[in-house]
């Protein structure tokens, strides 16, 4: 049953894969440039947009959003690398929104745990507490980071995330140009 505020339009935009309105401001050439850079990138590369502190904080946040357990998570998918590439290329215009989101996160950390300034320095349960509060109280800034995390986790690997297709493996998706029946359990006949 629909929960409050969940409208048909929300749903339709979700199923249409509006991956994230936050990532919808790119231009064609930038998308290609991002893909080329991502292909050439390696773990030793310099960060293009994110500062070391931002990288540390985003690493901790994304590792809570998509934790590593018996299956790979955001770290293995190189989600923060994806964010950096995107912000340097096709999602340039999202940089202020990213900075605002990280500022909000720092405020929440300080509000919950006076004296603390770093999300990454918190313990596991403390981090979850902060994220739940963030999600519940500021959907917009939380959505910026959540949206970029999901996009980095499950988008085409050529943009630098979903490294080794770990996101797709996690959900059981296979990118293949052709399929033949049976497609699923119920059409096995």
């Amino acid at each position, binding site marked *: 049953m629909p929960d409050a505020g969940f409208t048909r339009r929300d749903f339709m935009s979700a199923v249409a894969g509006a991956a994230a309105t936050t990532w919808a401001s790119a231009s064609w050439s930038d998308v290609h440039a991002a893909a080329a850079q991502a292909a050439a990138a390696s773990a030793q590369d310099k960060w293009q947009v994110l500062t070391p502190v931002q990288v540390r904080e985003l690493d901790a946040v994304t590792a809570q959003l998509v934790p590593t357990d018996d299956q790979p998570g955001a770290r293995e998918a190189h989600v923060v690398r994806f964010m950096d590439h995107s912000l340097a290329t096709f999602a340039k215009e999202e940089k202020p929104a990213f900075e605002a989101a990280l500022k909000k996160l720092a405020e929440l950390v300080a509000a919950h745990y006076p004296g603390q300034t770093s999300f990454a320095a918190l313990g596991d349960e403390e981090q979850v507490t902060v994220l739940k509060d963030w999600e519940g109280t500021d959907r917009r800034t939380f959505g910026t980071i959540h949206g970029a995390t999901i*996009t980095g986790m499950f988008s085409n690997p050529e943009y630098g995330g979903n490294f080794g297709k770990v996101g797709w493996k996690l959900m059981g998706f296979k990118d293949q140009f052709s399929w033949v029946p049976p497609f*699923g359990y119920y059409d096995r006949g």
Partner: protein
Amino acid sequence: MADHPHHGVPQGAESQMKTYRPSDEVDFVIVGSGAAGGVMARELSQAGFSVVVLEQGPWLTENDFKHDEIWRDNKSGLTNDHELQPNTFREKEADTAKSSGWAQYGRVVGGGSVHFTANYWRFPEVEFAQATRFGVPEGSSVADWPITYADLEPYYTKVEWECGVSGLAGNPFEPPRSKPFPLPPLPIKSEGVLLERGARKLGYHPWPAPMAILSQPYRGRSGCLACGFCYGFGCEARAKSSTLVSMIPAAVASGRCEIRPLSYVRKIETAANGRVTGVTYFTRDKKEVVQRAKAVVLSANGMESAKLLLISATTAQPQGLANSSGQVGRNIMFNGAGIAAALFEHEINGWKGAVVSRVTWDQVEVPKDTGLYGGGGFDFRSMMTPLGAGFNTPPGAPRWGREWKKNLPRILSNSIMAFGHSTQLPVSANRVDLDPTTKDAWGLPVPRLTFKEHANDTKLQQWFAARGTELLQAAGAEQILFSFGGDSSGGPHLLGTCRMGKDPKTSVVNADHRAHDVPNLFIVDGSSFVTSGRGQPTMTIQALAFRAADRITKLAKSGGI
């Protein structure tokens, strides 16, 4: 757009395509190359006329399409971009309209037929005569069409054979047909099996879905490879029967048709005698060019065609071109949707294959005891892609963390929507006009929507959502995720804004799609609809286009234009 790799004509088409100078007075300028414009281009050029087609968007080919959601969502060039071309929306006249992305349309050679789902349902016979048969609901502007199903039947058949539609004749709720489908149905998917299971339990009659996707090779095009990247994407196998692959190549091969991509029309030109003389458009560099023509065909979609007529007002026609009736832009409809969603025990894998494989049309007329007007039909579909599954968590479930992560395979592969497609009533006050303040990136006034759904339609969609829930339960759903209907105030189905009719006082075009007020102006697209159908309008848009092309050819050849 500025950096798009395809500024021009794809290799292959370039060498054989006839080109015209803007100063050449061609027989027809067609505005738009989509479901209707593509048909008009092929039919009129093959009939011997000189034709220039002006398309806002780029000319992409299968080589440009890919399995990539970031590409799809980030200016793939397939659809309109609200940053460059905003829309505004308000519920009633007294409100100030706010920026809104209410209209979606294909902005590419082939138009919306490039990225659509490809459901090709014929309208039922009763659609064309509802006012006579059932009366006019209070607050609506339901009217009979000036043509009947029998008038249109040969052209529905023509769509199936000329564009390529897969299906199976014999659906008990389908109106009479003169010919079988040219191609057998696409393979049944798990969604289809479950729809059959639920429908049979409830006494309905499930049937293979008619789809504009080739189930087998046909006329030099490949059959569907079931790659799954269908809705929202261009087909890399040329199996989806977009006009890009079904009509445009033949139009070009006629040697009489030029397709001019990245050409955004800003005005239809009118002479002192009231006849149109051509159109002015922006080139890719935003230079204004006038293409002269003996006649103009507007196939720009139900929003853009109305907008262009209103922008093209003259001193003699101050309300807008072809608008002495005041009906241009009015009666806009989008179709309704009543949707329920559920999780099933086993995997469905809706991300493989075409979106829809089975339908049930038992609801084509809703039962009288509901007191509701109209009807529709159902399909079961998943529509889940990797990013869609990442973002589209079931209501109330966590959206991140360990539990969400464990649930991902089920979200991607085990969920289904029962999608009820339904009537939306025409209402005169529901209209598109020109926003008085907001301009697009070319400086043109943007379309403003004033819209409030008729009370019947909200209830009808809720009725469909409830039937959808029953269907899912009867099919053995483990868990119903949600069910809702109503608020269809936008979307890709842009219908009714230049309605056809016999009376020039109450309609914009006649049964030949000729503007009552302007003898050499024709409007052929979803705007011609008098009523919305039961969802799935594209088949009817194309049948109307084939019929219009026949009528216009006869008129032109007898000196009647």
